[in-house]
């Protein structure tokens, strides 16, 4: 692999020109979409790109986008690895709610609800519980062999019930400076951004500078073959679910710290959808076996920018969902095998000497064997 962050080396033959290389990269679409949104925003309101320093804190629309996008980006990071193993984690929204509920309940119930130690232990307990939930998801998927959508659906359904049980159905508010620091604190940049960035860098280094990323992809391409080749598929699958739950838990802390409250019903509602969309827009194949962390980051920022755009451009907030849906459908259609093949044909007509149709994905989604067929011995 020539460059650690650009996935899918099959799409870039050695002799390809820079233009073809850029066109072949899956990062083009999300980057283009993000750029388009930013340009549109700047035209709509020229002050959009302005960032100012006040009391040692950075302010501005761009910083806002980064800050509000941090939880989605975090969850999407965890989701990327899960999707890379050909799985999906629907329970992240519920895990967000549980993390928020546990921390706030712990802080509110501690002898000194404003102390830093209460906040720290509360957060530690919440993260530990999230790791357990991740272990649970991983157990269902890797050991019991249940389809990921369904296995995580269980926690998605039951999880909010558990969060409600923890908070006793109330919205628990806390007033703890150390805790709000996680959500709305500043170290020049908002702390939420820095936290997300740290996780991103650690994951990027771990997965792209070691063989771990390659192993995750190989499990996603064919778990059985990976196992026969001597990989511990089961452990790897298990780990990505634990990591996903960890990310969701951390995002849950950010979300609840930002508003100093835990709302078991609404914290992280529909966030799994946003995260999955971020991953898909980022060019990670839902069929597994190929992922891009940078793409996911771009995807998460695109989604957050889209949300912000709706406000800055003055589109009524109630249209946001329609707007998002239309954009998302457009992105899916552009990414689909058939449209890509059509693009490839157009490209070939322009330059017939190209050796391979490199814009067509190496493994079209529709042509993959379905799980049921892989189970049967014949």
């Amino acid at each position: 692999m020539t460059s650690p962050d650009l996935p899918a080396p099959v799409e870039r033959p050695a002799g390809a020109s820079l233009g073809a290389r850029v066109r072949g990269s899956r990062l083009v679409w999300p980057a283009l979409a993000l750029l388009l949104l930013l340009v549109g925003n700047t035209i709509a309101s020229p002050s959009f790109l302005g960032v100012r320093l006040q009391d040692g804190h950075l302010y501005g629309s761009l910083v806002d986008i980064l800050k509000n996008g941090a939880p989605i980006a975090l969850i999407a990071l965890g989701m990327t690895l899960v999707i890379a193993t050909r799985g999906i984690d629907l329970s992240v929204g519920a895990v967000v709610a549980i993390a928020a509920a546990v921390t706030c309940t712990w802080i509110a119930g501690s002898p000194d609800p404003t102390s830093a130690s209460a906040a720290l232990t509360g957060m530690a307990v919440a993260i530990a519980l999230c790791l357990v939930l991740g272990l649970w998801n991983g157990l269902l998927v890797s050991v019991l062999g249940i389809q990921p959508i369904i296995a995580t659906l269980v926690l998605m359904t039951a999880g909010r019930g558990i969060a409600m049980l923890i908070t006793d159905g109330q919205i628990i508010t806390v007033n703890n400076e150390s805790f709000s620091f996680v959500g709305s604190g500043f170290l020049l940049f908002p702390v939420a951004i820095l936290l997300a960035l740290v996780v991103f860098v650690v994951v990027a280094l771990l997965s792209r500078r070691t063989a771990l990323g390659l192993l995750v992809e190989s499990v996603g391409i064919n778990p059985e073959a990976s196992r026969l080749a001597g990989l511990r598929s089961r452990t790897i699958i298990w780990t990505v679910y634990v990591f996903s739950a960890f990310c969701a838990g951390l995002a849950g802390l950010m979300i609840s710290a930002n508003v100093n409250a835990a709302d078991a019903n609404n914290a992280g509602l529909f966030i799994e959808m946003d995260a999955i969309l971020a991953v898909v827009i980022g060019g990670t194949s839902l069929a597994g076996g190929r992922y891009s962390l940078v793409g996911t980051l771009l995807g998460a920022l695109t989604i957050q920018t889209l949300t912000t755009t709706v406000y800055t451009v003055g589109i009524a907030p109630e249209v946001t969902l329609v707007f998002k849906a239309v954009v998302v459908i457009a992105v899916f259609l552009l990414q689909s095998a058939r449209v890509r093949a059509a693009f490839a044909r157009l490209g070939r007509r322009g330059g017939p000497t190209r050796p391979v149709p490199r814009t067509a994905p190496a493994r079209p989604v529709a042509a993959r064997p379905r799980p049921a067929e892989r189970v049967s011995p014949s």
Partner: protein
Amino acid sequence: MTATLPAPTLAAAGARRPRVPTSLLPVVATFVLFVVLFAVGSARYENFGSAQVFVNLFVDNAFLIVLAVGMTFVILTGGIDLSVGAVVALSTMVAAKTLQAGLPAALVFVLVLVIGATLGLMNGLIIHHFGVQPFIATLATMFLARGLCFVISVQSVSIEDPTFRAIATGSITLPGDVYLTYSVLVALLVVVVAALVLHKTRFGRTVYAVGGSESSALLMGLAVGRVKVGVYVISGLCSAVAGLLFSFYMLSGYGLHAVGMELDAIAAVVIGGTLLAGGVGYVAGSLLGVLVLGVIQTLISFQGTLSSWWTKIFIGTLLLVFIVVQRAISGRRPASRSTGA
């Protein structure tokens, strides 16, 4: 249970004794579960074991029955439809708003059904012709439908139309002072029609064939494309019908109606014994699945001291148990396939 599974199949093949086929076992299990839950309720609480409580399971879940029927078709082909809850919400919204504008109720029914079927068609076309995963395509439709609700109105819109209200509140009294609503009749009609379509038509057989193995179905020359698009149209249509029933139930249209109902529908189908991998399952099972969910809800409301969120936890646990059992059964797929398809 798992150890004895292959035995009936072998016995049925060898001795031709009338035995329950393996693919029916989960449905039977769900039926037994329903009976046990209902019996527990009757034993623990007075007034539980009455005919009215039983009929109320249908009255309160008529829309969910219709949704689960549509979902059964989709899951039988190995797909999934996450947009159903949002389409229900959109249907209530469209119905409420057009009735407010003074359109006759009959025209409103047609309009809602057309919208539902169109959204389903869109799902099907995106999934089949562009190779987008069902899960993702219907997720986008879910966003779209919910968004459209809020475009129509952010507030809840109540339904005042006299014809609509008359249908909604009208009831039929059965012998023994048991009443039921017209919605129940609609739901039961949908179940019967769906069962006939699945078992008596070419379309239905192709649905099972596609779920069993899409490539085999294609090689056999079956109309795979038409069926794959068709099931999503059916699901969209069922969602629209469910949306109308839900409007009867709530007498209002609101963008946040039916949040998470797609999960209830999927849970009902799974508990009803339909294999998520596709190819095995019955509409009757889904009906039983809805009844099980309904009886759990009723039990919790009769208990009174348990908070309503226990419902979610119970449904989640039940879902888990059924999936694990499914997994144990589908581990023997060759056996279940031969009797199922």
